[in-house]
């Protein structure tokens, strides 16, 4: 538990993802199986055991602690689990301190009623930081900014392999991940994944500067719209149906309707539009990796598109819409189309070499993205959603609103969210401002006085029937804080409604 507690403590204080990747890779080097695999599961909350409730925790604390001292300490620390961990008067124990694997295995089998007793016995075997981490594990609150994406990067760094290799294995791996770690250490072969519907790392496009387009020969390049939304891989093989996100996480549960409609055999590359708005959800399919049982990634795009057309015709379900090829004659045409993409609800243009293979992983030069030029709007900061386990502005997601004029005066309605990026935001000043202007907190969400104007760049406006505003900004990023502007100068909902497609 000691190494794991140190890892968690350092992750919780890490200033950025690069640091987290190094910390995780180092931990995997220092820790044997099966503990490192259990640590991976715990950090990603890929576990299934009953949660130690705050009531249980309070009871645990009251068994051994002076209530007055406990209360005074809790007032200072604020956090209940941390208070119990730091104050715990350990009794002499002849038990061995548990490692992550023992903790995970024991909790996974324990009836809920036995939790306090099990945890009390463990608390006597370890030091205060480990106690805190153990209580966070048991309460299922172990938050240290580790996302599946970050974990895959860390594993790739640990093994010195491209992250796509990890992505392809990801869905098929299970605790304790010993095969994976041994392969990454060079002590075993690459784990094999066969038979089941598995993830194939996605091909990514270059950010194509318009200059490369100088002789865009339509006979060599195919043009498509860049669809806004979430990129998905639909995998239906041997009776198993799975939907994966870009990093290889299975997200089938988010799209039950699509899963039901997957009456085909093969693997498709597609984009589902705007965040779960059912009425508008459209699925645009633009590539096929596996057709039937045949992996056709080595075939040229022109051939894959033909196979894709035939496959979608066979399915015959309107859920699967082919992302159409856009005809163009030359650069002039392309520039015109690029200007039009916002009106068509697209995030830009993408050009793909017709003779290119489907190459997994970082941009290879065969696909070129030309995103639309963003529009600018000034909106009002309404809420901050802090990243897991932090109170910092950088990495927090902010909700922004614009004015809707109603009979009883202007009201703010939220129109979108953006993650705040340290390169454009003065984090210290913003954190101070948020502290000074907090109205209330609900868990990770802080509601602030609607007084701060932020400049947003966005790539379009989508209808969103379920939102108060009736619309939502697409691909939003915060580009500057307008400290000097009064909130009343922010844009109105009417301004944005005019931009709806």
């Amino acid at each position, binding site marked *: 538990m000691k190494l794991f507690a*140190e890892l968690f*403590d*350092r992750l*919780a*204080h*890490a*200033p*950025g*993802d*690069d*640091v987290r990747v*190094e*910390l995780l890779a*180092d931990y995997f080097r220092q820790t044997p199986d099966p503990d490192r695999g259990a640590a991976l599961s715990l950090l990603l909350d890929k576990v299934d055991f009953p949660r130690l409730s705050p009531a249980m925790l309070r009871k645990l604390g009251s068994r051994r602690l*002076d209530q*007055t*001292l406990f209360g*005074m*300490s809790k007032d*200072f*620390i*604020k*956090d209940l689990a*941390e*208070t119990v961990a*730091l*104050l715990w008067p350990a009794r002499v124990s002849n038990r061995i301190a548990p490692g992550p694997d023992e903790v995970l295995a024991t909790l996974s089998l324990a009836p809920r009623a036995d939790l306090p007793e099990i945890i009390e016995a463990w608390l006597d075997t370890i*030091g*205060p930081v480990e106690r*805190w981490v153990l209580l966070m594990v048991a309460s299922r609150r172990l938050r240290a900014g580790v996302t599946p994406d970050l974990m895959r990067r860390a594993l790739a760094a640990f093994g010195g392999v491209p992250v796509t290799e990890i992505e392809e294995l990801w869905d098929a791996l299970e605790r304790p991940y010993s095969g994976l770690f041994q392969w990454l250490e060079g002590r075993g072969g690459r784990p094999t994944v066969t038979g089941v519907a598995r993830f194939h790392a996605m091909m990514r496009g270059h950010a194509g500067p318009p200059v490369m387009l100088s002789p865009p020969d339509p006979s060599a390049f195919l043009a498509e719209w860049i669809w806004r939304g979430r990129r998905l891989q639909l995998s239906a093989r041997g009776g198993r149906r799975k939907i994966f996100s870009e990093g290889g996480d299975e997200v089938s549960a988010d799209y039950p309707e699509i899963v039901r409609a997957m009456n085909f055999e093969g693997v498709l590359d597609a984009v589902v539009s705007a965040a779960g708005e059912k009425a508008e959800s459209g699925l645009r399919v633009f590539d096929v990796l596996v057709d039937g049982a045949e992996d056709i990634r080595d075939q040229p795009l022109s051939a894959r598109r033909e196979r894709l057309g035939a496959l979608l015709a066979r399915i015959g379900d309107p859920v699967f819409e082919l992302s159409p090829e856009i005809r163009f004659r030359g650069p002039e045409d392309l520039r015109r189309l690029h200007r039009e993409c916002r009106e068509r609800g697209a995030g830009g243009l993408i050009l793909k070499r017709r003779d290119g293979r489907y190459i997994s992983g970082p941009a290879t030069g065969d696909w070129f993205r030309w995103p639309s030029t963003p529009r600018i709007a000034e909106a009002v900061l309404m809420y901050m959603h802090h990243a897991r386990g*932090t*109170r910092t502005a950088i990495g927090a997601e902010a909700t922004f609103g614009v004015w809707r004029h109603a009979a009883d005066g202007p009201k703010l309605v939220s129109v979108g969210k953006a993650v705040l990026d340290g390169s454009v935001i003065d984090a210290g000043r913003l954190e101070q401002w948020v502290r000074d202007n907090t109205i209330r907190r609900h868990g990770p969400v802080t509601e602030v006085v609607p007084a701060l104007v932020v400049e947003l760049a966005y790539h379009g406006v989508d209808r969103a029937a379920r939102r108060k505003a009736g619309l939502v900004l697409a691909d939003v990023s915060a580009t500057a804080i307008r400290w000097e502007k009064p909130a009343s100068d922010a844009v109105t909902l009417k301004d944005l409604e005019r931009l709806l497609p």
Partner: protein
Amino acid sequence: MRPRAAPPESWLLPRPKGLYVVPGDFYIDPTHVVDTAVITHGHGDHARPGHRRVAATAETLAIMRVRLGKTSKEPATALRFGERLRIGDVSVWLAPAGHVLGSAQVVLEYGGSRVVVSGDYKRRADPTCPAFEPVPCDVFVTEATFGLPLFQHPDDAEETGRLLRSMEIFPDRPHLVGAYALGKAQRMIALLRRAGYERAIHIHPSFAPLCDLYQRFGVPLGALKTLSPEVTMAETLGGEIILAPPSAPLAMPMEPGRGPVRVGASGWLRVQSHSRKQGIELPLVISDHADWNELFRTFEDVGAPEIWVTHGREDAIVHHANSLGFKTRALRLIGYGGEDE
């Protein structure tokens, strides 16, 4: 039980300027200018400039000279530990407090009773100053900086090991340890030396005079390199340890992953909400103050039936000491705390 002609609460009084000793007409660690002061140690909140007469250890007086220019208007009185000085009707002597170089407890004997004013103190071994010596007394006047049971400082060698381990994980980044100029900086250096770290340690220019002073008083700190403000540190100091005041602006790239690992060293960093606030990447729980258990161990070691609490968090101490049978009193002195933790 000795008869007490004059109970201490009649002649040792908390006043706005500090703790006042009536029969000697002097203050201990006054926060304002006075005629006569006995100073426990050189931190700015305890050793103020401008008093007329001052008595303290030679080390504390030397520290005051470095930091304040001079100790007092009239020549100061340097006291060795155990050496008696008569001020008015009071017999005064000093005993080691183990807080920083020169730090002392002030022992007051008057009217048949003995009072020990501990100043700031700690109980664990510190290579940079002599260890706290318990002096049996009737009243023990204690600080309460870490007067909550959550403060139980870990082993400092283990914390130092965490810093050295971090240097293995991030061999290309400098490790920037935020520490105060008097005490914590030299202790961190000494702890690193004791852990076997022999390379030159880079120090902020403002640390140089006190590090020199420590070495003159026989505390070996090994090779130190004073930073010049022009150095662009990222290029030259990857893999090195740098000590600087926590708030010092340094010309360093601050991108995560490339900039320095910001290391903190303080008892407050035990608590997540404190350590996460300050942009610290590696919080080390290393303190120059007694933790909760050490406070109570000390009360027992000095055998005083009566405990007076000067500054810090006194409510928990008073509650717990009362339950253990001590007679306790909160003096609520103001103006202390802050520089060293």
